[in-house]
């Protein structure tokens, strides 16, 4: 009995070495599933901040929103929104280019996206400097800086990811096949998510 089980074990060992292969979904690859789960967790994080924002807005219930001494630069933020949304088009252009094997388009798209993202962040910081109130000024100041600052941190992370993708693109790392440009696809998905979140932040905080 013992010798039989040893023989079976040896036969099994001949066919398979190391740990069993990881199960993989046929619907989605590992990297894309990873960024999808990350984005789901990020949506919950932003959801908590938005819940705080609406809670404060309803509980404080001032006659005007934002409360009297506060004024937000809607036009500048609107222009900043246009800049960030246009960066989604450039990252999409970069990906479409590499899908067609156009490396120049990939590099151009990634550099343009990085520049537009950096411009957005620069204008955002400039806005903070000239706003005239800080995070310590009433609950509105706190939640305004928390929401926009949280988003700004995400833009910064997105810029870091785009920097890696751009450096790799200039080193000739990516190719037209789907599995050969995941290093651009995943940061691209993240960047689109950051754009969508900003549109929601802009509409709720600056406009409504």
């Amino acid at each position, binding site marked *: 009995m013992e010798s039989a089980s040893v023989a079976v074990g040896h036969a099994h060992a001949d066919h398979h070495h190391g740990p069993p292969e990881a199960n993989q979904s046929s619907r989605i690859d590992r990297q894309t599933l990873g960024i999808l789960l990350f984005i789901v967790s990020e949506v919950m994080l932003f959801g908590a901040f938005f819940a705080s924002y609406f809670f404060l807005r309803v509980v404080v219930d001032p006659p005007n929103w934002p409360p009297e001494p506060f004024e937000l630069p809607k036009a500048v933020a609107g222009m900043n929104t246009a800049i960030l*949304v246009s960066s989604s088009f450039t990252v*999409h252009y970069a990906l479409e280019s590499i899908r067609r094997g156009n490396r120049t388009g990939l590099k151009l798209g990634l550099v343009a996206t990085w520049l537009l993202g950096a411009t957005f962040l620069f204008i955002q910081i400039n806005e903070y400097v000239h706003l005239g109130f800080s995070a310590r000024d009433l609950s509105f100041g706190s939640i305004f800086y928390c929401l926009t600052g949280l988003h700004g941190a995400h833009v910064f992370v997105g810029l870091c990811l785009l920097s890696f993708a751009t450096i790799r693109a200039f080193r000739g790392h990516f190719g037209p096949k789907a599995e050969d440009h995941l290093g651009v696809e995943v940061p691209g*998905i993240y960047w689109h998510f950051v*754009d969508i979140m900003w549109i929601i932040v802009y509409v709720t905080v600056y406009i409504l």
Partner: protein
Amino acid sequence: MKFNEAAVFKWVVIVGIAGALIVAVTLLTRPLVGSLLLLACVIAGCAYAYRWWRAPRRH
């Protein structure tokens, strides 16, 4: 459901158009009207996202 960059880009365009519509309506009328439109857009977006998620994969 097909989750890739192109699909998410489509969502950027959808949310962008909805956002522009809400901004325009709010600035032309009152924030309350914009808030109601936002609520309607969120409900419609959730329904559309659910259908998109449940759609069979196309080869």
